[in-house]
């Protein structure tokens, strides 16, 4: 095993990332065997539907975890954005483009709010994001009078938002996500913004003494996260169409599990955008695979819970080994 780890190609790609890809491939065959048929195009398209919105959520939360914080509000913020924009579109007759912009703006506002609470007011991210999670659920419910927000169905007027997920069988959502993944990767690894975010996660006090405004850059991580939750809302409504108030918690776990599984350290300072993307693919395939094997969808919660626990354990073990 040590010899394999020391191979130049393994060092370059990263041992953990190779293991993740192997896990992904193994899962495909295990689920195919378990369900008695090879998972086909429709299963994979089904998995991709989830990849779209979960991917944006996971990318966003990667920035926050890189600072050493956490954001438990991403799922409810995504649902809240979908609810508000949907009501503006359908009930108030806003044009589609404006409603979609509103999705992103709502996410961004929650990001700014979280950023102020954590970076400027010094609240622990764990607590403040719990607060904004409740706030997002409440705002969504109040704004829609606890009614579902029904976005126009395919073929109806104003249904163009569905092109963000699929267009004539082309998985545009995945292409969109890949483009944003590349942008996020460059932002985190090759720009000063990303460097500051990672350095804050690594040693906040040293960054502060260097003269860098840590509050500003930490807050920016939350704004990026909120904005990506808003973008996730566009693909979420593209898949779901009917958005229910009060939901969203389950997406937090999946997004955070994807990040940690992908190699982002819960201690901050280390983040892998590529790893997060592979983590999202694994979680999404897991959901489809469990359904294909004939289990009820609620089993997915059990398995995701076990995976989160294992990912956390592996993260702690691996940081202990690295030291």
């Amino acid at each position, binding site marked *: 095993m040590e010899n394999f780890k020391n191979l130049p190609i393994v060092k370059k790609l990263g041992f953990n990332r190779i293991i993740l890809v192997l896990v992904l491939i193994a899962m495909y065959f295990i689920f195919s065997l378990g369900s008695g048929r090879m998972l086909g195009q429709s299963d994979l398209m089904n998995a991709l539907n989830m990849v779209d919105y979960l991917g944006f959520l996971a990318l966003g939360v990667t920035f926050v975890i890189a600072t050493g914080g956490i954001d438990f509000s991403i799922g409810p913020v995504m649902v809240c954005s979908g609810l508000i924009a949907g009501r503006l579109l359908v009930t108030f007759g806003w044009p589609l483009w404006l409603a979609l912009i509103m999705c992103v703006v709502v996410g961004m506002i929650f990001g700014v709010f979280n950023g102020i609470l954590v970076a400027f007011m010094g609240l622990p991210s764990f607590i403040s994001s719990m607060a904004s999670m409740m706030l997002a659920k409440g705002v969504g419910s109040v704004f829609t009078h606890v009614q579902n927000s029904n976005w126009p169905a395919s073929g109806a007027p104003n249904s163009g938002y569905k092109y963000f997920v699929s267009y004539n069988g082309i998985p545009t959502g995945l292409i969109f996500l890949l483009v944003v993944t590349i942008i996020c990767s460059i932002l985190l690894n090759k720009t000063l913004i990303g460097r500051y975010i990672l350095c804050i996660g690594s040693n906040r006090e040293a960054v502060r003494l*260097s003269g860098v405004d840590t509050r500003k850059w930490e807050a920016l991580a939350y704004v990026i996260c909120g904005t990506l939750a808003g973008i996730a809302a566009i693909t979420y409504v593209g898949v779901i169409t009917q958005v229910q108030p009060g939901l969203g918690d389950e997406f937090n776990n999946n997004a955070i599990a994807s990040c940690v599984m992908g190699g982002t350290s819960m201690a901050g300072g280390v983040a892998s955008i590529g790893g997060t993307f592979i983590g999202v693919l694994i979680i999404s395939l897991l959901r489809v695979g469990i359904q294909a094997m004939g289990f009820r969808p609620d089993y997915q919660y059990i398995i995701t819970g076990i995976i989160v626990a294992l990912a956390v354990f592996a993260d702690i073990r691996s940081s202990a080994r690295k030291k």
Partner: protein
Amino acid sequence: MFEQSARWNEYYRELEPARRRELLDQLCMTEPDDGANDYRRMLFRARHVDEKQPGRVVDRFLFNCLNFAQIWSSAKWFRKYARRETLQTLDAMLAGRAGEYGEAGERAFYWEIRNAAARYLKTCESSGYNRSLFGMIASGDESRAERVCRDVWRMSEGLAERLDLRGQLRLWNRAVQDAYFMSDPGAQRRFEEYCEKNQS
């Protein structure tokens, strides 16, 4: 090669930029000039003075300790880019100009970096350093010591090895590692073990 007078030692032991400025001005006037006083002033300016906001105190060399560790992490891909970034950072720290002032210049550069590294190591004692689980759990002393060792390795030996910049980072590495070895009695042994474990 790196030995100097007790007064200059005092200057390089001081970690507060404002006090360092006072000492620098004093020592440049009272101590015999070894030919590197101009260079020392240039290093101070490059490290602590923000030309755009003169009242603001910065510490670019301290930031570069963190920066080099992060470059190490991101240098798996686009190594040329990381190499260029490292060399540009060394240039901004006036590393290339040390030679112009001979042995005294190299000594001044070494001690300036050693001072920055000592300040970095001081920040590692803060309660916010090396917290786990989204900042919720503080680490124990042993875990903290191991993490510091990893950071020092990444910003010195690891970076030089990964980017093949041993020559350019010679003084930097020596200064950072010496500062680390002086910070804790078990540091040198821990560092050597870490180097052995990470030899490619």
